[in-house]
């Protein structure tokens, strides 16, 4: 049991660490690759939970995470970047340093919040929930500190990763919930793809800054 707990904790922490890694990438391609690694770590976490909870349906979750989030989505994003000839650097709205510091603060906040609230739950669930919430908040942080539409989409996907991490850690979460999350991500991916095309067509850039000036607000 102790080993189960340590390993689950380790994998969860790995997902969180990769969430931080997403924050300091300066190139789009690196962002996408980090995301793929995070999704793979997530699949590992799901598979490990399937093993220790002895609930086979979580293997399906793991498979979905591995196939869709770690392979298809990054591939599609890469393809889009190449195809659309998107600017290869990440435009930040807030410097890397401050962003990292805020990220650390967010992790601290979620630990402060989650640990006392879930005193009745098992230690594994508590730690897992705190990690998952940190990942969600980091995803949200990424969405607001990056100008580029591709980074925002990756931030959104990272946020979803956090949700799934929370879902697999709780015993008895029905498969249908995880399936629907996975498919909603896919649908969102398709929508974003279309969205990229439209923006690109009109502004020759995916920097949302142009969109703002088009709306006459700057």
């Amino acid at each position, binding site marked *: 049991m102790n080993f189960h707990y340590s390993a689950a904790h380790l994998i969860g922490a790995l997902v969180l660490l990769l969430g931080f890694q997403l924050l300091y990438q300066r190139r789009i391609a690196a962002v996408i690759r980090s995301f793929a690694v995070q999704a793979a770590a997530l699949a590992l976490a799901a598979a490990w939970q399937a093993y220790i909870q002895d609930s086979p349906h979580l293997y399906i979750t793991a498979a979905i995470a591995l196939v869709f989030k770690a392979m298809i989505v990054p591939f599609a994003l890469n393809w889009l970047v190449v195809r659309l000839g998107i600017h290869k650097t990440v435009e930040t709205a807030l410097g890397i340093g401050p962003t990292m510091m805020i990220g650390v603060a967010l992790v601290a906040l979620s630990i402060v*919040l989650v640990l006392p609230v879930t005193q009745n739950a098992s230690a594994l669930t508590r730690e897992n929930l705190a990690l998952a919430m940190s990942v969600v908040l980091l995803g*949200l942080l990424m*969405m607001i500190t990056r100008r580029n539409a591709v980074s925002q989409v990756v931030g959104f996907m990272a946020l979803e990763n956090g949700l799934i991490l929370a879902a697999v850690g709780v015993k008895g979460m029905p498969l249908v919930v995880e399936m629907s999350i996975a498919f909603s991500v896919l649908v969102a991916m398709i929508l974003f793809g279309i969205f990229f095309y439209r923006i690109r067509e009109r502004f020759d850039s995916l920097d*949302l800054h142009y969109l703002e000036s088009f709306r006459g607000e700057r």
Partner: protein
Amino acid sequence: MKTLAAQALIAIALLLVLCPLAILGHRLKAIHALVYGAATLISIHLAGLGVMGLLDGDAIGSAGVTLPIGLPWLRAHFRFDALSALFLVVVNLGTTAASLYGIGYGGHLAHPNRVTPIYPLFLAGLNLTLLADDAFVFLIGWEFMSVSSWLLVLADHEKPENREAATTYLVMAVLGSFCLLGAFGVLAMNGEDYSFAAMRGAVLDTVEVTLLVGLVLIGAGSKAGVVPLHAWLPLAHPAAPSHVSALMSGVMTKVALYGLVRILFDLNRQADWEWGALLMLLGAATAVLGILYALMQTDIKRILAYSTVENVGVVLLGLGLALAFRASNEPALAALALAAGFYHVLNHAAMKTLLFLGAGAVAATTAERNIERLGGLIRLMPVTAVTFLIGSAAISALPPLNGFVSEWLILQTLFKAPSLPMWTMKFGAPVAGALLALSAALAAACFVRAFGIVFLGRARSPATLDARDPDPWMRAALILTAGLCLLLGILPVTVTSMLSDVSQSLIGVDLSESIIQGWPWLAPVSAARGSYSGTVVVASGLLMILVTAIVIKGFGTRKIRRAPAWDCGHVEDNPATQYTASSLAQPLRRVFGTSLFAAREQVEMPMPDEIAPARLSVRVIDPVWQGLYAPAIRAVDWLANRINRLQSLTVRRHLLLMFLTLMVMLVLAAIRRMLT
């Protein structure tokens, strides 16, 4: 007792069924009479259930009914106790009269199909609120009541002032419900669910009690028309068809007071005496301001609506007194004050229904609501005039009618308040008593004016010339309510003994201690301080009339003497030279209105060579509207303009906003956790 609750629920379900029936049969001419007839029968049934509940003391503490409606894990709880029984009687006496009136009246409205289907929904909402035993059912009933009455106010939406009234009403109703929701939230804060049973056990700290009383006062007070939240009431009540106005004024305000009593006397009994003092202050202010407003009006239905504000103030005064007595460990006096308040609730429901129905009869036959253009109707509409006179006398607190008994009881109880140890009460209670007496006197002036201008004198405009009494159904409703006013006044001890159970259930003490002498003498506090019997007053009055008649018949001279007729002081044969509503109210307007309402009179005299009439114009400003509502409207406008800018933020900033909100909430949660 379970059967009583179940029967009442079945009756409510029948009322709900009437709505689709009325819609399906909207082409039939007879459908209106049918629906109102059915509503009358159901109302009589519900009132009967209420009376049975009041007579049968076992009602208290009985098990409720739980229906599997609503969210699966919540279900709907209903309960029938002494308090609901009393208010079922109050509500359904009013709805019986109004529905009876509707049989004749409902089909002849301008747009009957806008009213008939919604009317039973309104009745269902009123009754549902009274039977609720959890916050959800209560609020659903409350909202049913608000929304259906809002639709009824909108029945004649071609007139812009009606639309405006309906909008004001809706805004106030939403505010009220929102506050009540908050109040229930405070009550359920420490309990496990929203059922009233769980709320009764909750123990709140001082801050929570403050929050609770404040929210209840705004929530229920805005519905009842407590100053300064009354502004919608005189707009919305007159805008609805008359039988609905009667219900809104006579009954719906009582349901609001029921909410107040339910929360402050039943669900939570922790409110301290300061809150009682506040309620008394608000009640006294509401009573005096309400009746002063009424004196400034010339629209008959608006006069009645403002008079409702006054009477709500009187009841609130009684409830505040009960709260203060309860908090200072005087349960017998608290029970008496509460019973006095309930007595006035019952009385006002009867007399205000009567007056509104009478006003409706006048408005229907003359198509005129401005009393300056009415006059001399007593000869053309004798039944309406006599019943309206009975209602006016009752609401002016004249013995032997019912209004006197309850106001006298409240005053008698108020005289005991200086014996409380608090200096605020020692000095405040006499002031409240003086204000109550003032409001009763002003009410008499107001209804002398209303009755005199409408029914006496000579016709002031051609509108009144072919007025006649309404059809038998409407006459029956008028006579029924007038008889009720008389009965409630003549048999005070019977009524108070019925109210005894209610006090017992809320305060824990019945009225046997406070009402000392037996039937027919009503002697609150002590027989030496004052006792009253409507029965004896009526009996001795009748006896004196009999004696006088015998004396005149027996000893009077039969010689006929001829003399010129007195012409009542009329110099000129022009109806315009009579007293008008405005001239009758002028002295009072000058005394009270000059400072309170900034009333100013302006005389425009024509130049000596001009051929133009001189004009006297009066300008009255509502200080509450100017001081409270107008700034609130401006603030909302300003805020809406500010918020409007958020509409055009960028995607990233929208996200940032969400992120920051989330952060603030999370940090607050973290801080709260650390503190506890």
